[in-house]
């Protein structure tokens, strides 16, 4: 086992599944919630306030026997824009990918504007990502901005 893998296994190794690494520590519970991991029956381990060169302190979540779909990865990208996804099969790292915020996406979060049509009728939310660094979303419908501190997941 190389050094990197050993470090990743600090929380506990998984045979098959996904590791979500480089989550800001304060976002770990949010990621758990939006992915519905709190209702999942598979083995899940997570850690917070682990040392990280990039983030200072980071969080990590390991989910056994689960590989996330596009929509779920998108959710992670909004809650934790700099996270890394590590796909593990037979204790081996098969793939490691940085997840990126899309330029535009549907659903996932609520428009912050209470007068927006998406908060009044059955309409799928639709946002353009205006600022990836500071996470500023513009609603396709009401044109108002939803900022990082106001993001509420559906």
């Amino acid at each position, binding site marked *: 086992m190389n050094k990197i893998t050993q470090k990743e296994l600090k929380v506990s190794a998984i045979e098959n599944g996904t590791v979500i690494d480089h989550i800001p520590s304060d976002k770990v519970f949010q990621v758990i919630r939006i992915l519905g991991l709190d209702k999942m029956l598979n083995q899940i381990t997570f850690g917070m306030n682990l040392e990280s060169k990039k983030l200072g302190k980071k969080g990590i979540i390991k989910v056994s026997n689960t590989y996330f779909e596009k929509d779920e990865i998108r959710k992670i990208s909004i809650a934790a824009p700099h996270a890394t996804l590590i796909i593990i099969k037979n204790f081996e790292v098969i793939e490691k990918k940085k997840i990126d915020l899309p330029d535009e996406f549907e659903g996932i979060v609520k428009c912050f504007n209470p*007068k927006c049509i998406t908060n009044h009728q059955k309409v799928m939310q639709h946002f353009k990502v205006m600022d990836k660094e500071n996470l500023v979303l513009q609603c396709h419908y009401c044109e108002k901005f939803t900022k990082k501190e106001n993001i509420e997941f559906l």
Partner: protein
Amino acid sequence: MKNKSLISIHDLSKEEIYEILDLAEKFEQKPKQRILRDYIVATLFFEPSTRTRLSFESAANQLGARIIGFSDASNSSVQKGESLKDTIMTVSLYSDIIVMRHPIEGSARLASEVSDVPIINAGDGANQHPTQCLLDLYSIRKTQGTLDNLNIALVGDLKYGRTVHSLVEAMCKFNATFHLVSPDILKLPSSVKQHIKDAHLKYEQYTDLEDVTDKVDILYMTRIQRERFSEPMEYERVKNAYILHNNMLDNSKPNLRVLHPMPRVNEINEDVDCNPKAYYFQQALNGVYVRQALLSNMLGVEPENK
């Protein structure tokens, strides 16, 4: 723009704006021409706005179109809980173009996504009212001969005024210099100021109306609403500071014109009405020409005097 909807002023390029304004001039030269006699225009006013509706209906009538619709949602199927989507899908089967006003922001964009016919947004809450913006641009060009390099003062409620925000953003395409006159609590929001900065244009903020009257080409007045103030005393203190009187225009530039989106309450004193620099009634009439231009353009019908 045939078969395209008009939802937001941001949807229009500079070229498309000029195209509409040029076409509106044709209708100013010849307002009555029955080129839309085979068309049905639906005017759906989910919230009442008599001025805007009459302007659209006058525009449609002068072109010979038939009009269907409602002026108030309270006695329509909407009141029975029908979704906006269903209303629009149904009406789009009965009409060739839909003009809609709705209190909820983003409603017009949604409508344009479910409708088979073009939608003209006649106001969606505090969001957009692009035909007002186009008639403002038409009036500015008409009175100044150009849209480029103008000094424009915006006066009154710059914080909540949707009309002001759209006009500022549109004039950013034309190298304007902005003079922003308002009480401190009704200043232009920073998000709108950002547009000015992004376009590398100049703006200055004032609290005194008399500081700008002599140096601008356009004086765009707006109403200050009592509801915007939590303190009634504060309203009483500022309300008279933003009233334009005729003598305040004594040293203004000869090309200055006074605009107002109407209705006014008392922010332009009636003694201004006789001043040749007062342009707000003509501005309202220009709205009819602009709406004629939009209806014909979006239906793909050319004026007789092209």
